[in-house]
């Protein structure tokens, strides 16, 4: 069994429109992949469809997490199987503190009858908060309520750090972060990098890839991965824009 997240021929519909078309992508543990692509091309759709969001209808394909098809699983089961989403637009949960929220998520990963140990939990939580330079006072604040854009993104990474997923998909975690926050968050993500974890970074900017250097870069276009390469592909995209990809894509058709 290969330790990888394998997306095979995935097609996804939203409200009768096909957004992802026969998409293929493999993310092995230990690697960081970046996905870039123009607005509306289906990057967030991919992330949400993987997580099991009810609005996204899988019309064909498979998603194997370490060999196991997760498309049959409920949203929470997929998460407990080791899949994590850092959302582009995280929800606010009034009345539920960050500490209680993460605690419930950790508790859900324990075996039946096991109880989370409170002191250990807080020790781990404070450690990760310090790493991400989040004020400890945030533990008692309601999840994302009244948070600035950057604070919300940091909170996503905090949850990722606390839940130790096998595969993390980070949807535009870099947008809305100022230069300092970008560095802090990137440092945090780099610490979470390792042989036990695959990371998929969705981004519009090459800048974050200077901090979190990817093993592979994929370009998504119109619901498909149309080009893959190394880190230099991101630089090239930044220089040339997406039109270059478009031309490359239409060329063979023109020739035919």
């Amino acid at each position: 069994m290969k330790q990888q997240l394998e997306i095979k021929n995935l097609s996804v519909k939203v409200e009768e429109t096909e957004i992802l078309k026969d998409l293929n992508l493999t993310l092995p543990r230990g690697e960081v992949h970046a996905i870039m692509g123009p607005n509306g091309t289906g990057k967030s759709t991919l992330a949400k469809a993987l997580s099991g969001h009810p609005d996204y209808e899988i019309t064909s394909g498979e998603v194997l997490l370490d060999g196991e098809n997760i498309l049959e699983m409920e949203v929470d089961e997929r998460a407990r199987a080791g899949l994590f989403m850092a959302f582009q637009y995280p929800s606010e949960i009034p009345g539920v503190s960050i500490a209680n929220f993460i605690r419930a998520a950790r508790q859900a990963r324990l075996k039946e009858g096991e109880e989370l140990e409170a002191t250990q939990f807080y020790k781990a939580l404070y450690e990760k908060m310090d790493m991400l330079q989040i004020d400890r006072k945030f533990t008692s604040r309601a999840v994302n309520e009244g948070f600035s854009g950057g604070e919300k993104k940091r909170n996503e990474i905090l949850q990722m750090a606390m839940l130790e997923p096998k595969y993390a998909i980070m949807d535009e975690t870099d947008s809305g972060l100022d230069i300092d926050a970008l560095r802090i968050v990137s440092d945090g993500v780099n610490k979470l990098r390792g042989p036990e974890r695959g990371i998929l970074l969705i981004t519009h900017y090459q800048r974050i890839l200077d901090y979190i250097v990817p093993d592979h870069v994929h370009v998504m276009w119109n619901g498909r991965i149309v080009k893959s390469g190394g880190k230099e592909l991101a630089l090239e995209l930044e220089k040339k824009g997406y039109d270059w990809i478009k031309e490359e894509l239409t060329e063979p058709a023109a020739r035919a």
Partner: protein
Amino acid sequence: MKHELTSRETFDAYLASQKDMPRWWLDLKRESWDRFHDLPMPHRKDENWRFANINGVDLGGFHFGQNPEGEAAEKDLLERSEQVHQRAGRLVFANDRLVHHEAVSQKLSDQGVIWLPLEQAVRKHEDLLRKHFMAQPIKLGSEKFSALHGALCSAGSFLYVPRGVEIDLPLVACHWTNGPNSAVFPHTLVIAEDLARVTLVDFFASHQRHARNYVCGVNDLYAGPGSRVTYISAQNWGHDSLAFHLNSTQAFREAYVTSLNVNVGGRQARTESHSQVLGEGAHTEMQSLTVATGSQEFDQRTLQTHFKGHSVSDLLYKNALLDDARTIFSGLIKVEEEAQQTDAYQTNRNLLLSPTAEANALPGLEILANDVKCSHGATSGQIDDAQLYYMLARGIPESVAKQLLVFGFFEDILGKLENEEIAENLRSLIRAQFD
């Protein structure tokens, strides 16, 4: 021999058991019994019963004075009555039978504090009882059931706190039902004289979670001038029970009364709360938290009457509804002409965690004074799908996610409770509804 609850045989047997009680008490019982039979059953058209399931209000098939499981069960119930360890005294009843009486300290009794089971109080403190027992007007629709309570009630706690005496720890009363179809009539009477301070907690529960019982409880609070009275109740009757809890609060000059009812039990549970502001500068807080699950109906009728001004009454009823549950909130604020400079608020908030749950709200105002601040409002919110998805995406199972949202919804009340042990008890009661 089991008799129908409302039959003559039931009452005769009860009177026989009361033959050593004072004459006035027996007279009051007879009078109440007659009144119960004279009063009509609630009618669909009664404004006080709007939206309620009238058909569910059926006293048939209940029995009084049974104790089928005897002393073994009582011992078990006593062990389960340890919710609050730090307490000033305790009373435990099972099927209206006194199981345990833990007196107050010598110091408190030397100060004149009286903490007794109701029947003993009736014998020893006739003046106080004649003045206060069932002396409050019942106006919110359950006059008939209140009369039955008056006729058959023997179990309950009587608490008297003399002028200036402050009790730090809570007094605790536990009322249990045991066995199927038993009927109980728990009573709570708190009298706090001038400047006294006291907290009383009532725990109501059935021995069996799905029991069918009939309950009609009355709790009356008398808060003398400058006193501080805190009353908390946790209602966890069996889920096939019919329950009434009728409250009346009298707040005199500068008194501060807080009441919090937490409701999770019953098939059909009705609370009636009447807060009477009788003195200038008095303040009453009326709070309620309900978790309605399955096909439960919680029916809440409230009245805030201001007879005197410079006073405050603040009502906040929060209902979390799951499954096919229903709630009814009907509240009225009445400010008499004389009660100038009154602040009266009434808020009902409903959190609907299921598309088939139903929350009804009937807020109301009747203001005769012209210099007042009053507001009433009811809101119902569906659980937000995006919030639920976000929690699921963190691996939190749906039932736990809903539980977190409910605790989030209740936190503004639970988080402010001063007594952490009581707060934790209430939390675990709420948590248990999600298992």
